[in-house]
């Protein structure tokens, strides 16, 4: 199996989908000739031509609005938003149109698109190139939300997202675009949506993480292990609908929960995860569930490593929770 980084794996998924399904088109700013500012769409323009790999004008609202129209027609647009920080001009089309089309038309008009966009900090981007906006989409009924952490999952989840009948937000953790490497099968395969992965088994405390922070959680778990605390680390992979079964099974075993995410804490996805667990496994909890997250401030530039919930912030919480 070839070794790939995440950029290559996502590129491979796009090419694979476009080869097997003529309805799939790629569109966004700079996705064509130059292959995307992160080079995720490199080579697609040459292989599939400018009718299926489309450099658009600078308008996220226009990109998503026209993509929704293409989807109503029957294409499957895979849209790139250059940074998730720039997705907000398209939020109206996503919330009011894309997410509600099937429902409001009594099933007559499903609108299937995939929106790919890099998320998160750690590349010195300040608050306009580092946002991690999953909560604003998970709250919207009708959308699915995915966030892979490694090349294998990224390809398999993107192919699953493209094949899925519902609109999917596909968040790509850019901090590990090139850092995360691994074996990636050739050709088509899928990693099913709604399936989390237990990436490190443990019995003292359950840690939920995704995207780039998964590696921080794993690092903290390794260090905790040296101190006798065995953390079970779960990579959520699909954020919504989340794999509630795997989560509850784990927490019921460990009795303790730590949730990690980069986005600001307040009304972040961590609140939902904590609530789901507290509602459903209250009598199994032996300590208060805890969140280790970004702060309720815009994402800073120079101090980004202090902002992000890295291993050095996860570890003490993990130990405290396990010992509480």
């Amino acid at each position, binding site marked *: 199996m070839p070794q790939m980084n995440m950029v290559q794996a996502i590129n491979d998924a796009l090419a694979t989908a476009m080869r097997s399904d003529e309805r799939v088109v790629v569109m966004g700013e700079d996705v064509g000739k130059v292959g995307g500012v992160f080079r995720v769409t490199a080579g697609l323009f040459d292989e599939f031509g400018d009718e299926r790999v489309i450099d658009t004008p600078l308008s996220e609202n226009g990109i998503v*609005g026209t993509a929704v129209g*293409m989807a109503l027609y029957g294409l499957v647009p895979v849209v790139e938003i250059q940074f998730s920080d720039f997705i907000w001009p398209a939020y109206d089309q996503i919330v009011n*149109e894309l997410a509600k089309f099937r429902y409001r038309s009594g099933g007559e008009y499903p609108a299937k698109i995939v929106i790919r966009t890099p998320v998160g900090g750690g590349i010195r981007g300040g608050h306009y190139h580092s946002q991690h906006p999953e909560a604003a989409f998970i709250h919207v009924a009708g959308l699915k939300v995915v966030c892979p952490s490694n090349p294998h999952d990224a390809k398999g989840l993107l192919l699953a997202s493209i094949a899925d009948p519902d609109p999917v937000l596909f968040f790509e953790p850019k901090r590990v675009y090139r850092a995360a490497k691994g074996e990636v099968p050739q050709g088509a395969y899928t990693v099913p949506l709604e399936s989390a992965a237990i990436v490190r088994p443990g019995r003292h405390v359950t840690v939920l993480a995704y995207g780039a922070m998964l590696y921080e959680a794993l690092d903290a778990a390794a260090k905790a292990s040296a101190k006798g605390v065995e953390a079970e680390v779960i990579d959520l992979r699909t954020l919504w*609908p989340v794999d509630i079964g795997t989560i509850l099974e784990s927490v019921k075993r460990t009795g303790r929960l730590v949730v990690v995410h980069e986005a600001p804490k307040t009304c972040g996805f961590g609140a939902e995860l904590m609530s789901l667990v507290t509602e459903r496994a209250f009598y199994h909890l032996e300590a208060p569930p805890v969140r280790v997250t970004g702060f309720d401030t815009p994402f800073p530039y120079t101090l980004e490593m202090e902002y992000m919930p890295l291993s050095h912030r996860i570890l003490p919480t993990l130990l405290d929770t396990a010992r509480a």
Partner: protein
Amino acid sequence: MTTATRQRHESPPADDVIRVLGDDLTLDPVYDPGLSPQEVLELYRHMVTTRLLDERLVGLQRQGRIGFHVGSLGEEAAILGSAYAMRKGDWLFPCYREFGAALMRGLELSVFVHNMFGNAKDTVRGRQMPDHYTCRRVGWVSISSPVGTQITQGVGFAWGAKIRKQDLATLVYFGDGATSSSDFHSGMNFAGVFKIPTVFFCRNNGWAISVPTQRQTASRTLAEKGAAYGVPGVRVDGNDLFAVVSVVKRALERGVRGEGPTLIEAITYRMGGHSTSDDPNRYRASEALEPWTSRDPIGRVRAYLEKHNQWDGTAEERLIAEVDQRFREAVTSAERTPPPALETMFEDVYARPPWHLAEQRAERLAGPRAPGAHG
């Protein structure tokens, strides 16, 4: 530097406005769409039907039998003429004021009326307000309330067809107010760049609720907004059925030839309130209607037909009686239909309900019903 000169948007059509049906009831050959007598009659009947239904629906709303209606009084020629000019395989992206066009395209009256009642037979399952129906069968896209959102979508749809080399165009309806929306800007811009076969049909009815068109934009006309996007703009007398059919046909042909989109400004007037929720007397003097009353789009065609001995009072009475009869039946049926079943609330959010919706559905079905009746 040129200074843009202002002209009152609501004033009766000026020189650069395309007209066909003259005051003398002759058709100007330059833009005559060449409709057969049968076609004119058919369109006339649809216009009258639309107006009658409008009146009846407002009546039902006043009686509290339906919750809302947004009508098209005075805009019938713009709405029906434009839809008529499109081909069967073309797709329409409506605003919310064009039910007459949907019925003409083949939406069944009963389906429309069920939607007005949001009942179990409403094809959108009582999920949207009245007048927010859908009819894929006739190329009519699901209606949305947010102003302008259909514009980019209509462009994307035709773009999709273009990529797949299908001979298909779209027509997008929107109002003067919608020209201020982000979707107008993006839709026009994308359509211009990619030469998409979309007809942008702007019903300039003078008002966006209480805001007059001159407060919406400082451009002299709405048609000239096309220049910003390399899209030709045309102004047409929106109360002249023949002229509307003609300019839309030409725009459609242009799109089909691969020459790209056209922006049409149909100059008309909203003779009623914005919707049943609105009282226009709060912001509009009734004299404002006067210049438009004499230009009533239905009256003009009726005069034309009468001149050619193709219509008379008896025919009109017969038509009205027939439509009223059909409408009454549809209302009776709709009022006898129960509200949608509780479980429909949880369907169609996703293709298949995920665990959390299945759970919420089960919980809701097991719990007590809300007090009071629905529908």
